[in-house]
């Protein structure tokens, strides 16, 4: 009771100012520490843009070329910085164009706040010009959303939005604000949100569960860690590394977990899943204790659930209780955020090296190297491989670049072959598989971390889905390095057609434009490479460029990505050819 009275007094004495709803929106963003937001103006959001004009020395609005680009840029910003990305759009088509990025952020747990303008409240429900029920439309793909129809409700709604987006398992939030609420004036004051009664973002870690987990791990002969993005979101990279090293446990990663432990770490045994590495996939079905940390057993990771790690005891460290037993039945579930749980686990673990077990990973790696990796990295055929390009980027960047990939074959190659020596370096659309994600996400990443080298890697298909964002790169002078690995095909679909549809290449062949001319049309330095002997020099020139740079590499047209677990097959049925 006492604290409440003090709080009330504070509220009463807090100075307020009479400002418009639209100014309040911008002031709220500044209060939340937003320095950059991405968006596109239009009728129902114009009052806010008018305020952004006035506050441009405090907050930088980036005009993208499409609202989808704004969401992906906000995602890239969030993924590299760990901060909340912000996207803004007008009502109607502006708002609906955000949906793909919102769905992407939802499934990949990316903190994002989207603000949309809405028609004036007296027109709601009347099929007014540019009216869509964006709250209804976005409901299944947002962590939380709401509509604000009164100016005085804006600060509380936005404070709640930022808190929910960032806390616990992060996700996208949408706040829809009617135009009259933007115009109306009210007494503004801002208080950050720190609690929502019905919402428990981080469940308490049960120490007895940690002890159970430690007991299983200490008794294991063949333990395997599979970590996911939860380690990065929970900033538990150091804790994970300490556990891996102390207990000598081979550790593999999901696509979104990449970079939490450096690629070069001797106990990093590679990626799991459909196009992951041979050893961790095969040995998932041989380990005796499987330790899943901040990952959600996606079907692209597990393959057939009926044959997934059936021999193993499964320990699941997870922040989201709804993930426990959702796909894989666990023996010990440790709820809580990764950092807290792993901190508690570390002192309970015995030192170990599991030499023989680790040797198995090395042996299987050698098989994968001989059958796949060698040919990818050092091909003897004439055509360039995608992996060669990654190898050159690794050399030039010393494995420190943030790799922003799109979706398809090049994405799998990028994740397989890029050196990730710095955390938060693999920015890709993992869960939704959104073609067109890469280029705008790279813009957001570069603007959030200008000190870092950001390389966007796309295929010729996905690149053309958001190619207009070259305009944003040019206008913002964002020094993004844009690589297109061009095989004149929608390569991953073509690969499936070759393997499973008797080479009937239905609508996968691309007749492509002059990509260099397009980049140059946006005044971006550009080069095209078709021969192996030109590659190293071209990549070097790109990486040394202080400005944005576009590099097209024409690669072998019908290369396939291996290893591969065919859809619905067991992880141990992974194919090398």
């Amino acid at each position: 009771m006492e604290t409440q009275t003090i709080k009330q007094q504070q509220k009463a004495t807090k100075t307020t100012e009479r400002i418009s709803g639209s100014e309040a929106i911008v002031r709220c963003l500044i209060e939340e520490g937003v320095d950059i937001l991405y968006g596109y103006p239009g009728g129902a959001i114009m009052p806010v843009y008018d305020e952004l004009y006035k506050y441009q020395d405090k907050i930088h609005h980036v005009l993208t070329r499409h609202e989808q680009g704004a969401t992906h840029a906000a995602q890239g910003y969030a993924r590299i910085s760990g901060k909340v990305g912000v996207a803004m759009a007008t009502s109607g088509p502006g708002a609906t164009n955000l949906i793909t990025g919102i769905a992407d952020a939802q499934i990949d747990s990316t903190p994002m706040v989207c603000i949309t303008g809405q028609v004036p409240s007296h027109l709601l429900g009347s099929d007014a010009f540019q009216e869509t029920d964006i709250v209804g439309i976005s409901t299944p793909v947002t962590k939380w959303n709401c509509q604000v129809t009164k100016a005085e409700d804006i600060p509380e709604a936005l404070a709640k939005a930022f808190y929910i987006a960032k806390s616990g398992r992060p996700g996208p939030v949408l706040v829809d604000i009617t135009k009259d609420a933007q115009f109306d004036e009210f007494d503004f004051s801002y208080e950050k949100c720190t609690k929502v009664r019905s919402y428990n973002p981080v469940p308490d870690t049960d120490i007895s569960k940690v002890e159970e987990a430690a007991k299983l791990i200490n008794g294991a002969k063949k333990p395997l860690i599979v970590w996911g993005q939860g380690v990065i979101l929970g900033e538990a990279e150091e804790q994970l590394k300490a556990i891996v090293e102390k207990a000598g446990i081979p550790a593999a990663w999901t696509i979104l977990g990449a970079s939490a432990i450096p690629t070069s770490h001797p106990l990093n045994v590679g990626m799991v899943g459909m196009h992951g590495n041979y050893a961790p996939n095969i040995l998932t079905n041989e380990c005796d204790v499987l330790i899943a940390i901040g990952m959600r057993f996606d079907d692209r990771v597990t393959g057939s659930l009926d044959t997934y790690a059936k021999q193993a005891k499964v320990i699941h460290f997870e922040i989201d209780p709804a993930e426990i037993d959702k796909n894989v039945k666990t023996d010990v579930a440790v709820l809580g955020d990764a950092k807290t749980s792993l901190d508690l686990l570390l002192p309970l673990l015995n030192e170990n090296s599991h030499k023989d077990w680790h040797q198995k990973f090395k042996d299987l790696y050698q098989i994968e190297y001989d059958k796949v990796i060698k040919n990818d990295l050092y091909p003897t055929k004439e055509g360039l491989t995608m992996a060669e390009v990654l190898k050159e980027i690794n050399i030039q960047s010393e494995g420190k670049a943030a790799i922003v990939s799109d979706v398809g074959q090049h994405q799998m190659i990028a994740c397989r072959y890029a050196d990730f020596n710095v955390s938060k370096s693999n920015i890709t659309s993992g869960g939704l598989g959104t073609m067109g994600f890469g280029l705008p996400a790279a813009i957001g990443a570069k603007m959030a971390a200008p000190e870092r080298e950001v390389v966007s890697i796309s295929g010729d298909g996905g690149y053309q889905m958001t190619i207009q964002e070259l305009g944003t790169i040019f206008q913002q002078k964002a020094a993004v390095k844009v690589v297109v690995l061009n095989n004149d095909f929608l390569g991953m679909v073509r690969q499936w057609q070759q393997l499973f549809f008797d080479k009937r290449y239905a609508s996968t062949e691309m007749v492509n434009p002059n990509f260099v001319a397009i980049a140059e049309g946006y005044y971006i330095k550009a080069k095209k490479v078709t021969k192996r002997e030109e590659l190293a020099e071209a990549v070097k020139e790109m990486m040394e460029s202080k400005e944005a740079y576009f590099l097209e590499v024409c690669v072998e047209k019908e290369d396939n990505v291996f290893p591969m677990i065919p859809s619905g097959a067991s992880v141990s049925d992974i194919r090398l050819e």
Partner: protein
Amino acid sequence: MSTEKQLFTVSVYTENNIGLLNRISAIFQRRHINIESLNTSPSEIYGVSRFTIVVYMTEVNMKKIIGQIEKQVEVIKAYYHTEDETIYQVSGLFKIKSELLFEERQIQNIIKESNARIVTVNKQFFVLEKSGKREELKELHQKLSEFGIMQFTRSGRIAVTKDEMKISSLLENIKNN
């Protein structure tokens, strides 16, 4: 855990929020689960709403769905219970021509035997209310159908559990933390 399908009563305690029904029903929709009945009402706690949802599904999936419901920001807590674990009722209203009440002796007997209650009577029609199990309402409906029913409607299930649901102490904890 049973993999047989059965009826479950789901009780969801929530903040009273526009659009929350949409969020909750979407979770069932994604898995193609038909909602057998749905009722929303205030709960025993001031300011907290309660959804009572009846679904027919396996317990394995029920558990997963409860997790996904509880994950929603404005959901305070969700529970599921089997038929044996709850006391439940539905309510039905029958609108019937008044002349039948006076002319058909049997109708009066049906009303008496079924423990139905006459809500209102006027010259044209009378309205009969019956609360009970769904089967009891079905039986009454069958009997009255022979004479003609002008209108009929049945409510969603409302249910309380035999065991305590520790929602009050949960909210108390949240408040104090």
